[in-house]
């Protein structure tokens, strides 16, 4: 196995972790097959699980095999999320150029992540794009709806490109601080815990959910689901963190809790803006899940929060 991992150029702990994820998927598919054999209606679950197969396959192949392809793939996630965002918000015709400019920020931002240029990576969108978009809009000269448009565009660019690009930053910056599992281990840890937390919160909520947290924003979210998810994520992160990250089990468990809480916050902020726009899903790209934005909403918070937590305590 280690020879295969070496041949694929994937760190051994990450390789084993990937195999474990496929194991979980096989288990889930078998479980659903048994449910359906017993006559339980599980169409939604089946669609979701099928989509998980596709997502996990794309992610593991694109992210862990060849580095430039990883940067392009992670950039593509941001691009698709940004495109979904621009397609559901109110837009002014005059801002077509600004929308195009925002799209062009994606390759630039992921180029900085790929080059591990932390300085430019961390200021390009919050400083340079933040200043550039309103300037272009001002030069275009249409002031009606200007402020609203500036706000909507800047927030969208931050939420879909800046925050998600931290996944690429972890991948390309992590090799020195994480000599065994490398940057790939950090990225895997973050994405796995965040996505597992989503599923855990959903499952705990389905089983025991009573008390609503945010009835106005996301009526399906309950305290039982949230706390069950956080506890599960703490345990899972504490178990796998020591193999995939430079953290011991205590730090890993703490970061599991941080990822779970941040993921929840990302989830409800996305719910809030979708509710404001009057849409249920941001798109229809992933059957059973909605749009890509609906799948990565927890990562919009979890990725930057976990990255800066790790950077503060573990980066030189």
């Amino acid at each position, binding site marked *: 196995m280690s020879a295969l991992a070496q041949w694929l150029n994937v760190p051994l702990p990450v390789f084993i972790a990937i195999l474990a994820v496929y194991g979980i998927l096989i288990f889930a598919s078998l479980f659903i097959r048994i449910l359906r054999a017993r006559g339980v209606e599980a169409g939604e679950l089946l669609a979701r699980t099928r989509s998980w197969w596709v997502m996990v396959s794309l992610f593991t192949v694109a992210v862990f095999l060849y580095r430039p392809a990883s940067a392009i793939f992670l950039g593509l996630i941001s691009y698709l999320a940004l495109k979904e965002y621009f397609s*559901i918000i109110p837009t002014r015709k005059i801002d077509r150029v600004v929308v195009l400019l925002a799209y062009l920020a994606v390759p630039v931002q992921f180029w900085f992540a790929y080059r591990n240029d932390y300085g430019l990576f961390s200021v390009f969108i919050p400083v340079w794009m933040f200043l550039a978009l309103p300037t272009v809009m001002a030069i275009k000269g249409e002031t009606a709806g200007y402020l609203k448009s500036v706000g909507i565009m800047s927030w969208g660019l931050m939420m879909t490109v800046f925050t998600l690009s931290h996944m690429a930053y972890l991948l390309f910056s992590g090799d020195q601080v994480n000599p065994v599992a490398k940057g790939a281990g950090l990225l895997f840890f973050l994405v796995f815990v965040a996505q597992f937390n989503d599923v855990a919160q959903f499952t705990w909520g389905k089983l025991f959910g009573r008390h609503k947290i945010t009835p106005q924003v996301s009526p399906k979210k309950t305290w039982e689901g949230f706390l069950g998810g956080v506890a599960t994520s703490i345990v899972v992160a504490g178990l796998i963190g020591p193999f995939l990250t430079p953290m011991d089990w205590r730090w890993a468990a703490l970061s599991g809790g941080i990822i779970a809480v941040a993921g929840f916050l990302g989830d409800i902020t996305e719910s809030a803006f979708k509710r404001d726009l009057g849409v249920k899903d941001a798109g229809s790209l992933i059957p059973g899940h909605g749009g890509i934005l609906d799948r990565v909403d927890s990562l919009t918070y979890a990725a930057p929060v976990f990255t800066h937590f790790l950077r503060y305590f573990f980066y030189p």
Partner: protein
Amino acid sequence: MIALLRRLFFAGPVRLLILLIMGLNVRGRDRLPASGPAIIVANHNSHLDTLTLISLMPPALLPRLRPVAALDYFLKNRVLAWFALNIIGILPIDRAGGANPLTGSNRALAEGSILILYPEGSRGLPEQRSAFKRGVALLVKENPAVPVIPVFMHGLGKALPKGTKLFVPFVCDVFVGAPVPWTGDARSYMAALTAAMDGLEAEGHFPPWE
């Protein structure tokens, strides 16, 4: 040779552009015709409309797909004319009059083609539907057995509206409706077709574009 070129053009760059860079949200895709003859009736906002509809159809049907387009617009310069006739595969209609404008369409349907028709006549203002012209009813009257499938598209006029060359990606909606059978006379047929399009449009939730 040209057929192969046309096939490669739609299989490669067009699909990449329409399905990945731009992205579609399709409803009722299984209602699109699986064989010819058929008539697809759609609203028209952008040059991308035709590329979008063609990229939703299986490649095997490509030789049968004929977007019906105005002779004067597409044949005004030689490069555009060659591209429109051979790669897009348009069926040119002479708007100026003279010969019966339906002759070409009737013949194409008799040969088993799938016509793509934009009864608004022009792309018009982005994301605003204008009234359908009656020509489509006359065509269906002469071919009452041919299925007519209404398709409502939204967002392509944001991505590439009339009067600009700047393409800006947005996810676009394509809603395919049930076939609208011939009703017996042109007036009631136009009403039925318009009602079908209104129904499809009402399915969507479109953010303001002002």
